[in-house]
Structure formats: C-alpha cells, structure tokens
C-alpha cells in the first residue's frame, strides 16, 4: 500500500490548485451538456425514450470521466515523469516504479471520478435523473476512470515528447467519443462501426450509465463491467511493463 503516498502527493497538488483544476475539468463538459442538451434537445422530442438532455447527460458523464482520466495520466503524468522528474525523486525513497504506476493510475481515476460525480450531481439537481438508482453510476464512473487512466499511462511511459499524445487523442479518443453513444445512440451506426465501439471501453461505460439515469437497471451488466475491468487490468500490466523497462533498464 506504499503507492498511497504517491496518490496523496498528487492529491495535495490538486487541493492547492483546486479552483483552476475544477474549472477546467467541469466547466467544459457542463457548458457542452447544457448548451447542446437544451439547444439540440429543443429540436428532438425524445431519444431512446428519454429527453435529449438526460440522454446526453449520461454520455457526458462518461466522456468527461474519460477525458479527465486521460489528461491526468498522460499530460500531468508526463510532466511529473519527464519534466519535473518527480518520479525519479520518489524512486530514491523506498518506493518502486510499481508503486508509482499504481499511485498514478488510481489518482487519475479518482480525479476522473470526481468529474463524473459532479456531473451526476448537477444532472440530478436539474431533475435529469429518473430515480435514486442513478447513484450506481458512481462506481461505474470510477471504473471508466481506471480503464482510461491505465491506458493513458501506457502512452505516458512510452512517450518521448508531448506530441506523442496527439496521436492517441486525435486518432483514438475523438473518434471513440463519436461512435460510443455519447451524442446519439450507437445502435444507429453501421454494424462494423458498432462492433469497433463495442471493442472499446467508452461504449460500455455509456451502456451502464444511461439506463441508470433513465431509472432502469442496465442489461448485460457483467459484460460491460468485464470489458472495463479488462481494460484497467491489461492497461495496468502493460503500463507497468514499459515503466519498468524505461526506469530500471
């Protein structure tokens, strides 16, 4: 449990920079939610049996969680690893690169969870959640955070410079957001595209959160949870492998 010291270090920085941090992680998704939700929602009577803004709130919860986890583990993580050499300083202490990787992933997931939870709270306040069952979206948000934090950290420990992340952001994250049911139901996509979405983690987060916002119990819970856990576990293992190679070679 030594990795908790790494988590607490990042938490202390976050607490000191609270306002800027919360603003950047929440203002964007909330502006998008209310802007698109009400604007577009006025044109659409209902989507998948829900008001468009409630439909979109579920998607936003997942995509904001994904973006927060990814930014934290990639950009902030790379800054700690490469620019500030914070990881080097930690490794002189009786901690290992395994502790650093675990601490970074759980930290990024925690920060992402907070984004998701806040969006959920705002959505509930505006009456977009149909029943208290929506609180089950909280553990889902943490799982989505873990999956994207772990995959993001793979990019970080492989990165030679900042540009490296643009490829992942532009070629993977942005298209994934489009096809995973954040803005519109993924089921209306051509079969092969839907299959791609189903192979990626974001789709499964949305599939779990959206029914919870609508007040229903999601279907195929085990499948969705398994995919998210698998991404988190495989991401952790791969990130650890490359981190060990980078730091102890």
């Amino acid at each position: 449990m030594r990795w908790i010291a790494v988590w607490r270090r990042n938490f202390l920085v976050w607490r000191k920079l609270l306002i800027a941090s919360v603003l950047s992680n929440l203002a964007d998704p909330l502006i998008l939610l209310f802007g698109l939700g009400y604007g577009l929602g006025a044109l659409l009577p209902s989507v998948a049996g829900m008001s468009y803004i409630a439909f979109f709130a579920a998607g936003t919860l997942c995509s904001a969680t994904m973006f927060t986890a990814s930014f934290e583990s990639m950009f902030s993580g790379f800054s700690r690893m490469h620019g500030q050499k914070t990881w080097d300083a930690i490794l002189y202490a009786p901690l290992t690169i395994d502790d650093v990787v675990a601490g970074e992933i759980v930290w990024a997931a925690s920060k992402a969870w907070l984004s998701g939870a806040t969006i959920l709270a705002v959505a509930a306040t505006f009456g977009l959640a149909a029943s208290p069952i929506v609180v089950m979206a909280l553990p889902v948000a943490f799982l989505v955070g873990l999956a994207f934090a772990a995959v993001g950290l793979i990019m970080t420990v492989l990165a030679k410079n900042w540009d490296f992340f643009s490829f992942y952001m532009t070629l993977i994250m942005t298209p994934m957001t489009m096809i995973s049911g954040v803005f519109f139901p993924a089921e209306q996509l051509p079969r092969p595209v839907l299959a791609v979405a189903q192979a990626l983690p974001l789709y499964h987060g949305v599939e779990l959160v959206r029914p919870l916002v609508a007040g229903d119990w999601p279907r195929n819970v085990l499948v969705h949870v398994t995919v998210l856990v698998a991404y988190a576990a495989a991401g952790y293992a791969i990130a650890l492998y490359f981190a060990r190679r980078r730091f102890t070679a």
Partner: protein
Amino acid sequence: MSALQARALRKRYGDLEVVNGIDLDVAAGECFGLLGPNGAGKTTTLRLCLGLTYPDAGTIELLGEPVPARAREARSRVGVVPQSDNLDPDFTVAENLLVYGRYFGMSRAAVAARVPELLEFAGLAGRADARINTLSGGMKRRLTLARALINDPQLLFMDEPTTGLDPQARHLIWERLRRLTQEGRTIVLTTHFMEEAERLCHRLAIMDRGRLITAGSPRALIAEHIEPQVVEVHGSGLDRWLDQARRLAPRVERAGDTAFVYAGDAAPLIGTLREQHELSFLHRPASLEDVFLKLTGRDLRD
C-alpha cells in the same frame, strides 16, 4: 564495517560498457568520492548501488542489504541528492519535506517534528512557507539535501552536489557535509571538482570509461601518481625553453600554449625561467587535478 560493497559490477547499454567490472568498498562513517570525466559511468554506478538500475553482472551490498533484491529496505536508510534538483515546484519548502517523508512511511507529525531542525541545518529557517520558484539555486540544493535527510539516513549518495553553485553556496554545502560525516554518517559523492574531492573525501576512486583506474586518500594518490611540484609555463619561446627544461624535469605535458612541467624539485626550473623574460610561469604544489588529468588525459569529453 562496510557501508557499501560492490564486486565485479557490470552494466551495458547497447554496445557501450558503461560500467565495466568495478569493485567498491566504502567504510561506514567515511566520505568516499567517485571522480571521473563526464560519461565515465559515475551516475550509472550510483544508480546501480541504489537498486534503481539492475546490473548485468556483479553483486552489491548496501548497508548490509543485497541490492537490487532488497534495495527497498536499503533505501529506507539512505538519502539521495541528485545531480539536478527535482523538488516539487507546486509545493512550499515544508510541503516538499512532508510529502517526501510520507514516501518513507512517516506520519505528518513525525515529519513536522523534524522540519525545524532540517531547515536550520539547510540554512532555510523561516522559509518553511516559501514557494520553490522563489528560492535561489543554492537554496534549492540545500533543500534537496534537507529532503535527503528526512529519514535520518545512515548513508548519503550525492551526485555532483555543488555543480552550478556559486562559491558561497558551495562552501556552505561543504561545511554541512563535513558536519554530517562528523555525526557518523557515510557519504558517497560523485564530482569532477578536484578541490571538492580533496577537501571532503577521506578516500576516493578515479573512474574512466567504466573502470576504476585508482583509489586511495587524496594525499596518497598525489604521492603515488605525480611529482610534488608543478610549473605552468606559457609565452613565446616556450619550445626553446622546453628543450632545456626536459633535462631538469622528469615529465612535461603540453596543452595548447601552456606546458605543465612536473618535478621533484622545481628550483632549477625556476632558475632557468628567471632568464626568460618572454615566458610567464606559475609554480605550485601538485594537486589532485594533476593526478586526474594524468590518469584520464587532457582530451575533451562528451
């Protein structure tokens, strides 16, 4: 008792043997210097001793613990001052110490109890709440030293502790390091400042191209490797004078316009120089730097 022992240590990166079969013995309580030109393998050797990098061959024992197998346990009793400062820029001075203490499993109260003493030691008393970017280079280096002492280590690794510091800051660091050895702590430092090594180190080893060339006390190394007197000469007519000088001195080294003439007795050389008004000269006792240059050559590195 041996604080650090390495045997037949090897580390290769690609085709380059960065550490090529070295043995180290550092006794508890001594200040040991690892000297060498840039790229000699000093930093890699330190990383190997800390278990941060795994050796291709050889054994290491740090404070009685086999490394890398039990490096974590060894590091809990070791402090490290790296070559470039990596303090946390988002934190104050005190927060840097608090966060670092937690890496050693220390509670907030345990760290807080040590902070005043450490800041006093580092000459940073009253600066607990200062932000890192308001500190000078010397202050940052002293804070890094204080950070390395948070766990009350028995042994301190320092990688070029005074590189880039002004003379005042350097002398303060030297004074503090002497105090640490007086407290019975072991120090292992790398440097390419010979003056630093000569002043601080009880024993030192000179390293080049991954190998240890020689080891011993600074005085012993000077006595063993080099004539006690040096005359540095430059000016026009140097070559003509050198023909004469070579008969009076066992060894002459030429670096550009300057000749370094090494001799047991410099008086005859000085005598001949008095007649050479075109030549400027400096007569001084031989130093560790002369040993270093003799053993590692005068060619530029990196």
